[in-house]
């Protein structure tokens, strides 16, 4: 074996080993959460109200709260994020204003989540008088998710070959028809991936919902969008740090449910993605 071949072998072995190292933390997290939390997962745990200072009963209101928050976040951030990304990629001229918008989108993603929480509290809860509510929490999470959704949508749109747009325009289609029929259908899988990623992150965030929606202990379901709710990540924080003598399996069980919820969302996006790919044959 000559030197170049040997070096190639070493290089690939190192790359392979490093890649393996990346997988280890994920496996370990799953192992710990499942091995310690699995025994807590019962039908009652998933569907009952908490009782006895949260040491008994279930986490049903927290599950519902998180599902409501994800739905609310989606309702605000998807249209806003996807539509503005379409504008930026397909219509906006490359001028100072556009560059300013792009810069602020990038910077938005660098803001710590607790700052979003404070901002949401000031703007939605106090100034807009929405109160500590599902609405205020969803809006706060939506703004936090926007940069990732915009960036992912932009990348998905930019990945669609320029030739498709030229074909469409050269046949006399308008810009909007071109976007609608020759660009968006091919960008949807990429948009979905980015969107679900950002929503999964929003589902697990504690800081933004701390002051805007999350209830410490509220063993009933919300009546309207202006109610407070419990949410899984905050509940997890509460029972792990604020309640003495909490059985460990309840914390890990709650974490397991949260992971499960996020995995479910990813699964739905994978199914949708392969559905769109099959339809478009590319």
């Amino acid at each position: 074996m000559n030197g170049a071949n040997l070096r190639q072998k070493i290089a690939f072995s190192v790359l392979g080993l490093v890649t393996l190292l990346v997988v280890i933390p994920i496996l370990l997290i799953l192992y710990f959460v499942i091995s310690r939390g699995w025994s807590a997962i019962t039908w009652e745990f998933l569907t009952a109200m908490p009782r006895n200072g949260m040491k008994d009963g279930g986490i049903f209101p927290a599950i519902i709260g998180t599902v409501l928050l994800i739905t609310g976040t989606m309702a605000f951030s998807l249209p806003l994020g996807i539509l503005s990304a379409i504008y930026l990629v397909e219509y906006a001229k490359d001028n100072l204003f556009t560059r300013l918008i792009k810069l602020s989108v990038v910077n938005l993603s660098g803001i710590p989540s607790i700052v979003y929480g404070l901002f949401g509290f000031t703007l939605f809860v106090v100034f807009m008088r929405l109160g500590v509510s599902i609405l205020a929490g969803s809006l706060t999470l939506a703004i936090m998710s926007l940069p990732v959704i915009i960036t992912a949508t932009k990348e998905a749109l930019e990945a669609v070959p320029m030739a498709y747009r030229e074909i469409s325009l050269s046949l006399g289609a308008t810009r909007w028809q071109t976007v609608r029929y020759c660009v968006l259908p091919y960008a949807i899988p990429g948009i979905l991936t980015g969107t679900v990623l950002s929503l999964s992150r929003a589902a697990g965030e504690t800081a933004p919902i701390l002051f805007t929606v999350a209830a410490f202990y509220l063993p009933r379901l919300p009546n309207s969008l202006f109610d407070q709710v419990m949410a899984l990540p905050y509940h997890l924080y509460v029972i792990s740090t604020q309640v003495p003598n909490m059985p460990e399996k309840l914390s890990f069980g709650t974490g397991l449910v949260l992971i499960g919820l996020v995995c479910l969302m990813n699964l739905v996006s994978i199914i949708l993605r392969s559905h769109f790919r099959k339809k478009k044959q590319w």
Partner: protein
Amino acid sequence: MVEQNAMIKTVNLNCYYEDQQVLQNINLEVYKNEILGIIGPSNSGKTTFLRALNRLNSLNINYRQKGVIIFENQNAQDIDDTLLRKKIGIIFAMPQVLPISIYENIAYGPKVHGVKDRAKIEFLVEDSLKKAYLWDEVRDRLKTSAAKLSGGQQQRLCIARTLAVEPDVILYDEPCSGLDPISTAKVEDAMGQLSQQYTQILVTNNTKQAARVSHRTAFFLMGEMVEVDQTNVMFTHPSDQRTDDYITGKFG
């Protein structure tokens, strides 16, 4: 042979990318139902000229243009982008099909122009494919992906797709540069048939192709149009020495 009324006329057309001038004072008439060949080495501005005619250049934000383009006795500037591009179709150098079925590729144009009647669309699909000499090869698999066709078939599909929006002019930007000789011959046959109904402009790096197909030929060099004349005159007694040098292969 060729009716002598101008379909397209450019008056002092100058084109620029940023500060670089790529076309200088192009004055050229294109007659109805002729095939005008445009030959010249790379970077002579042939493609820019084509894309100026159906305004695809304006997609590039650095592009600027001076001069007048007259299309069907009307200043092209006064015609809406979508209408102008519908009337002046273009075939790109590399066969570019959308990753959808053969049928959908051709139906796309009529659909964006508001044709809803299914029978009309089906007629346009069949008629365009026949005119592009592709119908017999694909008639039993219209619903399969266009990406599965060979390069030559894809290029003829592109021609059919352009025909389906019922243009008056078809521009070809080196349409055979990626094709084998047999596919090239088929595309050239299609062009010959189409000249009964359409005005065609063929940009090509292949001087022999221009000699075979076009009625008149223009020679572009470094952004200038050196001369334009009947093809047989151009290839036998060109009036400019540079044309003679290019055609006989002294440079290029």
